[in-house]
């Protein structure tokens, strides 16, 4: 990886490029906050951000955010309301793109942020859904960001907190009544995995600069399909990096080891 940027900065830039101009984006915790800000200030000037605690914005906050509830995110917002009102927009299909933080994901894009091992006596208790399940079920498409490790990208998650394409069979989401189109991409520390528009199984969409396909495969818990167009993930542009560093001046999200 380049000296010019960190893996987190590359992930933020890649996530930002998933946002289209004019999108209503349901912004999750952490890196997606930065991704929205970068997109809004570069290629998507008309993208709006909806936050589950009850905020709507048309521009990033004027100061650093440790959480979406920090006061700079409230000042200058377009709508300060309750969770159920922001969820109403998503339940009606108005949210074009959602971001969900992932702990464990499988080849069909199902996310587990609840229990590793048996829910009755898990090896690891994760914090839970938050708004993740809501985004996964109700937003038009969604993207998750996570560290690329074999224990995180697994063949099948043992517990589905936020459903992706279920068992991968065609029409699984529609059959189960899920409203949105499901996961569109998994942005990791090594690569961007994508899903076919009709759902199904993740494939390797692009590898990050300096990363080998074999390295991605070794860090993935299933045999990964590689798309014909698989190329290098574009590096963050100078403008994107400037935006990231303006939004995260201390490197809280993008430079500290976590």
């Amino acid at each position: 990886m380049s000296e010019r940027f960190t893996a987190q900065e590359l992930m933020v830039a890649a996530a930002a490029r998933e946002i289209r101009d004019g999108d209503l984006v349901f912004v999750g915790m952490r890196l997606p906050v930065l991704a929205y800000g970068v997109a809004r200030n570069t290629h998507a000037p008309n993208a709006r951000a909806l936050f589950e605690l009850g905020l709507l914005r048309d521009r990033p906050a004027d100061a650093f955010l440790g959480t979406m509830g920090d006061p700079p995110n409230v000042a200058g917002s377009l709508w300060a309301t309750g969770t159920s009102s922001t969820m109403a927009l998503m339940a009606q299909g108005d949210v074009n793109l959602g971001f969900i933080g992932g702990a464990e994901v499988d080849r069909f894009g199902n996310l587990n942020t609840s229990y590793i091992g048996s829910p009755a006596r898990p090896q690891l208790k994760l914090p839970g859904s938050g708004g993740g399940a809501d985004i996964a079920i109700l937003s038009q498409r969604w993207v998750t960001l996570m560290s690329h490790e074999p224990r995180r990208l697994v063949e099948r998650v043992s517990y589905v907190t936020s459903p992706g394409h279920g068992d991968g069979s065609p029409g699984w989401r529609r059959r189960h009544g899920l409203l949105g189109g499901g996961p569109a991409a998994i942005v990791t520390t090594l690569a961007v995995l994508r899903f076919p528009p009709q759902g199904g199984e993740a494939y390797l969409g692009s590898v990050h600069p300096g990363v080998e396909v074999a390295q991605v495969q070794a860090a993935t818990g299933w045999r990964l399909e590689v798309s014909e167009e698989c190329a290098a993930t574009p590096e963050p542009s100078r403008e994107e990096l400037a935006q990231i560093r303006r939004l995260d001046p201390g490197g809280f999200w993008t430079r500290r080891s976590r």
Partner: protein
Amino acid sequence: MSLAQAVERFVPDGAAVAMGCCLEPAIPFAAGHELIRQQRRDLKLIGPISDSLFDQLIGAGCVAEVVAAWVGNVSEGLGHCYRRAVESGDPWTLTVRDHSNFSISLALWAAAWNSPYIPTPTLLGSDILSGQAALELVDGSVRVGAVRPDVCVLHVQRADAGGRAHTWGPLGVAQEAALAAQRVILTCEQLVEPEVILSDPSRVLVPETKVVAVVHEPGGCLPSPLPGYWKRDHAAFREYAALSRTAEGFGRWLREWVLDVPDRAAYLAKLELDPLRITRRLLSEPADYGYE
């Protein structure tokens, strides 16, 4: 009324308590710490995302059940006391009723309206449904059963002694939690004259008929933020994350920041407050309630 008195009188052992209802801001940490000091037991905690407060109460042994969408530390990650309780029953066994943010909101709205449940498309296809009687899949919708708190604790910007308060900023599930609760305890940054509150009834979230206690408790939300008053104390969340990784470390944190601290004033005295205090005002345009 002091916070100690309010907690003593209105939050008995076994109570179902809604806290942290605005998600990341305005979390009533002072009230939570008082629950720990008074050794409250068998609480049922209700909330959407608890930014460390639920983890602290769990670690202190106050909690029998959690009804929540997320329990952890928003900027830092896992809730280590929550993990230990679920993974190995330390300090003791915890019943977990998982929700999403939307479903916990609907559960509270159902209780507020005395509806048995609200059907919704959310949670379809999620394992959150499995084994939970209060989340039932019927006719292609998920029926989210009503969740009724005995008490809802809110930290607000300003209140009067009569139980009327102004809140502003994002509300999370605070409105439905307060309406659903049998009673509401308010902690506030400023205790003001009734005229201030009555000048703007549209900013009142909770009917005074629900409010059983108003406690003047400046900084009662710290380390969580509050628009117009406090920035988030990121360092406190980071320190808590680091220490609470082990039960022993959590014990040290608990003694230093809760047990050895008699009240919120003493907590604040331990902090460097100036960097946390919001001083530059950004005042809203007034609304005109004239009638003649």
